[in-house]
């Protein structure tokens, strides 16, 4: 006897329910909890040391970022931006009045909804499970869609061969070639060996706090719970994960 349609649907339905339940139980039992890495910058501590370049120098040295004098070809992972341009928030005018005219440190926001990842035609840039948005230079074809998509200007394209402009001594991190895009990778190569990001480590004011945003006991979550923080252009819906404590 051939099983009828009802029997087939019943068997298929119970199989689907059973497999979904097994997956759910498996996840709950194994206690998998993904990290969500992010950064908080205490803007008041940072501007207190105006003119300081410790984080920039440490980052650019660690990643062999070239120092190209021609601004049209400039490559940067982390830099300073006037407060008004970086963090103009209309309804926070009264709160941020003291910070006007100062400069803040900016870099890739490692967005939860990264537009650069959405437009990349080769998936050379992607968001890792822990939220780090990173670039695979092997796969980058240099189309620069991501440069256009990023509303924060966090990405640099190598218009010229960067290597003659890399200050010596070289660090062990791979350099780049002409024709690829690069940006802050939240020091994923340092995180992998248990080190903090280079900028965090270098900051003399301890103004940069790095940590797991999903862990309520982490330093970054404690800081964000205590102080008022803003993000860069939240109205765009990119959900940046770099917080500016003001």
């Amino acid at each position, binding site marked *: 006897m051939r099983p009828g349609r009802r029997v087939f649907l019943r068997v298929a339905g119970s199989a689907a329910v059973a497999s979904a339940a097994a997956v759910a139980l498996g996840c709950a039992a194994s206690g998998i909890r993904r990290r969500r890495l992010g950064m908080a910058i205490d803007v008041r501590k940072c501007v207190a040391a105006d003119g300081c370049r410790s984080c920039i120098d440490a980052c650019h040295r660690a990643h062999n970022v070239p120092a190209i004098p021609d601004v049209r070809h400039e490559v940067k992972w982390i830099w300073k931006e006037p407060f008004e341009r970086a963090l103009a928030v209309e309804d926070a005018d009264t709160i941020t009045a003291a910070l006007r005219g100062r400069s803040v440190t900016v870099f890739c926001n490692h967005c939860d909804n990264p537009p650069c990842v959405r437009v990349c035609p080769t998936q050379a840039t992607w968001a*890792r499970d822990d939220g780090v948005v990173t670039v695979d230079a092997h796969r980058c074809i240099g189309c620069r869609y991501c440069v256009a998509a990023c509303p924060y200007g966090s990405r640099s394209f190598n218009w010229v061969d960067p290597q003659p402009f890399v200050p010596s*001594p*070289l660090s*062990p991190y791979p350099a780049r070639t002409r024709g690829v895009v690069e940006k802050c990778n939240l020091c994923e190569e340092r995180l*992998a060996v248990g080190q903090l990001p280079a900028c965090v480590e270098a900051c003399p004011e301890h103004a940069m706090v790095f940590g797991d945003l999903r862990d309520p006991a982490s330093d970054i979550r404690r800081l964000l719970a205590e102080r008022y923080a803003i993000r860069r252009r939240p109205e765009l819906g990119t959900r940046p994960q770099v917080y500016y404590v003001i």
Partner: protein
Amino acid sequence: MRDRGWILGAFAVVLVLVTWPAWRAVASAPPRRPDLPRPAGATACVAPVEFMRASHMTLLVQWRDRVVRDGVRTYVDSDGRVVTMSLSGTCIGACHTDKTKFCDRCHDYAGVTPTCWNCHVVPPAVTVAGGVR
């Protein structure tokens, strides 16, 4: 058909000229295999020599994808040793310390120019602990 001799003669001359490099290669001694000194202190590579000779590029591409895309940085080789997957850190940094006497010699012999070193520049002192790729 008075020109048959000329035509055939010219044809033979062209044939000899075109195939000249092949004749010369057959007549001369076979090219000497590159002299690849064994790295001091190392007993074995991460895979048998025959495999590495033919397919090291495949292995390196697999390493690249594991490290860059999956975030996995260690590799267990056929002898059970755990190594860090890194071209400039492990292969060159810890074993074949002089790239010019190993990688370059063989690549020159084979007439290939891999683009790996366009970015994976080998700094004078390479440390694996620094998180090299």
